[in-house]
């Protein structure tokens, strides 16, 4: 699947998205687009709606209002097709603690109908650096290792789009570069990534576009190349402080 012949010009296109939980509006009329091949990092304080946004994009939570299209597919009608095209890493490992790493990967591979599964698992294990612990029970693995297995799981079906929910927590510098490596290594060319985080420094290092999410809305967007970190910190404190 070549990124060029995907229908629609954007990898992710969000228009007037709203999500209400009872009386609380977690996301309000959010508009956002992510082009193919972009690495967008969204910063925001806790409660801004970061996790909710990821949950909506990964089809777990349904929006209250608005239109979302991912990889050219509409969220409401083709969520199953969307799921084939996204890989999600969140702070919960989504691994069965009583199964070994490779058993977890095999299970997910079967769920995603990954062709040539055993070979693909070895490939991915190599990229992420977990070959030596594949047969270990997940519960005995360190947090960082489990995170790596999670990443392996997320790229197993080679999705063109990745959604990351604060992945840098519990990853050291080396593992962080493993993450970047894993995301970049793809036969289909540059993966599109949307990452949410509350850590400015870590996120800054990874992305080429940044946005700030506050109180359920995107309040600032720019390229990382045209700014320096301290300016962004100022802008961030300004915008977020105002709430």
């Amino acid at each position, binding site marked *: 699947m070549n990124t060029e012949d995907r229908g629609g010009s954007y990898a992710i296109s969000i228009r007037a998205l709203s999500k209400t*939980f*009872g*009386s*609380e*509006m977690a996301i309000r009329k959010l508009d956002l687009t992510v082009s193919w091949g972009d690495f967008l990092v969204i910063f925001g304080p806790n409660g801004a709606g970061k996790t909710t946004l990821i949950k909506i994009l990964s089809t777990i939570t349904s929006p209250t209002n608005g239109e979302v299209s991912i990889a050219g597919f509409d969220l*409401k*009608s083709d969520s199953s097709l969307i799921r084939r095209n996204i890989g999600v890493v969140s702070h919960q490992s989504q691994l069965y603690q009583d199964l070994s790493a490779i058993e977890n990967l095999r299970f997910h591979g079967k769920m995603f109908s990954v062709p040539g599964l055993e070979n693909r698992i070895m490939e991915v294990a190599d990229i992420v650096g977990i070959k030596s612990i594949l047969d270990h029970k997940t519960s005995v693995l360190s947090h960082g290792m489990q995170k790596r297995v999670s990443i392996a799981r997320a790229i197993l079906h080679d999705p063109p789009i990745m959604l990351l929910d604060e992945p840098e927590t519990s990853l050291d510098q080396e593992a962080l570069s493993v993450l970047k490596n894993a995301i970049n290594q793809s036969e289909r060319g540059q993966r599109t990534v949307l990452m949410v985080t509350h850590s400015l420094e870590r996120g800054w290092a990874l992305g080429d576009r940044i946005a700030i999410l506050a*109180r359920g809305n995107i309040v600032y967007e720019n390229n990382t190349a045209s700014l320096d970190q301290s300016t962004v910190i100022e802008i961030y404190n300004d915008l977020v402080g105002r709430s």
Partner: protein
Amino acid sequence: MNNVKTGKSSLFLLLLAGAMMLGTLYLIFMWVPTEKNLGISQRIFYIHVPVAWVGFLAFFFVLTGSIGYLFAVKSSNNQALMSAKSWDRFAYSAAEIGVLFMTLMLISGILWAKPVWGVWWTWDPRLSTSLILWLTYVAYLMLRAYSYNEDQSARYSAILGIAGFINVPIVYLSIVWWRTVHPQVLVGPAASGSLDPSMRMVLLAATATFTVLFIYLLVERMSLQKSEEQMEMIQGLGRTE
């Protein structure tokens, strides 16, 4: 505007129900002749049966509301999505009032059983099925109370509302068959059989009365729920400013 109109029609219903109730009570306690076998206690029949009928009607409404909700919530047009909320309110209100009427049915059944058969309870298929139905809808109300958010609460209870109702004929059938296996269990109230025309008329009057009462309660409850939701939304908007 909207609320004034509903206000007027509920007032009308309340007055109508009130008037009918007075009339019916007169018929039940003053007018209709005493049944020769069972005596005065038989008059509970004129409350027990209509209340049971309304209970079942209420649960049929829960079924309708649940189905309506599930279909509305899956569609993509906004009109349907708005109506989903109304279907949900309809189902919830009907369930609450249904449990109320079912409780009355069970209590009146128990009160009737004692003087007539000498025991508080018999495994009469209708009474037993009603008990199971009552338990199912109490579970429905618990599910509503224990859900984490409204979306969940509406979806989950819609599923239970449908499952519970479909279960009724199966439960009834299994109890009827079960009783033929255990004939030593006391027999329940005889089938209505041939009713004296005057008794039949009173029964119909009572049924109509309780149905009107039910509709009144349902309308009131639904509008109360709507107001509660609007209140919460306003409070929510206020909080996030």
